[in-house]
């Protein structure tokens, strides 16, 4: 069934990503966009969804209306998942359904060491976006005999909860984050 899921996903991506480049009647699989365009568009969708969740769910229900909290331990606390957790769960679900692309949320200062950069491009990318706020990082890398286009986008502290959670967490390797700081990066990888 995995191929069906992949087909469905590919159709969805075609609609979302290729449509601007298509003309009426053109339904071929021929790529009409660059890997950079593709990762930029994917990131735009990801970041927009996450922002909507942060603003309309977490900010509204936790901070403004004080109806329910968001918590790292959302099951025990009967709480909302944190925006970063929602993002990670989405990345895991995509990973279960396709090898066409992958994404992850990594950091030079991860609370969970599994989220530290591993490849040289990931390390260079995270260092670059931290030193050049507002810019993205793009590179190609070969992993396991396959060449990938890898893009790294800054992930910033957008709310006091991001800062306090990371600064105060018992496993944090860094405790001086401020609002607006680059805390890590979204890494999107597409095989070429």
């Amino acid at each position, binding site marked *: 069934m995995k191929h069906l899921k992949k087909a469905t996903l590919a159709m969805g991506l075609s609609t979302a990503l290729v449509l601007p480049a298509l003309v009426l009647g053109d339904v071929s699989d021929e790529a009409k966009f660059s890997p950079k365009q593709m990762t930029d568009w994917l990131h735009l969708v990801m970041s927009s969804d996450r*922002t*909507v969740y*942060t*603003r*309309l769910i977490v*900010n*509204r229900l936790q*901070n*403004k209306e004080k109806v329910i909290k968001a918590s790292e331990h959302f099951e025990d606390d009967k709480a909302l998942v944190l925006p970063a957790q929602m993002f990670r769960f989405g990345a895991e679900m995509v990973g279960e359904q396709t090898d066409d692309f992958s994404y992850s949320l990594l950091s030079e200062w991860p609370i969970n060491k599994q989220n530290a950069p591993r490849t040289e491009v990931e390390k260079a990318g995270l260092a670059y976006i931290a030193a050049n*706020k*507002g810019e993205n990082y793009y590179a190609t890398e070969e992993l396991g005999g396959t060449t990938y286009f890898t893009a790294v986008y800054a992930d*910033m*502290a*957008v*709310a*006091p909860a991001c*800062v306090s959670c990371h600064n105060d967490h018992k496993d944090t390797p860094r405790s001086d984050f*401020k*609002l*607006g*700081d680059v805390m890590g990066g979204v890494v999107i990888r597409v095989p070429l």
Partner: protein
Amino acid sequence: MADYPEFDGEALQQGREIWLDTCEGCHGIGVAGAPVAGDHKAWAPRIGQGKEVLYEHAIDGFFGPGGTMMPARGGNEQLSEHEVQLAVDYMVRLATDK
């Protein structure tokens, strides 16, 4: 980091230091929907509400349209009300400086 101007007067110089330390992180490039410093168009309607409103929003926090959120004291609880006001004054000056 962008080169943010210095203005005459001790208050504006203090405000600049506070702003760089606490506010620039978001207002420098517009993180989380924050209006970018020096963007005259974005700031005009905000400044039009009067400084007392800006002070209040900066000190107490503010929920904007679409679920955006300005955290109280820019997320820096150690700032006094006066220090927040100095930072607001500097940001207003950035937005109105020709």
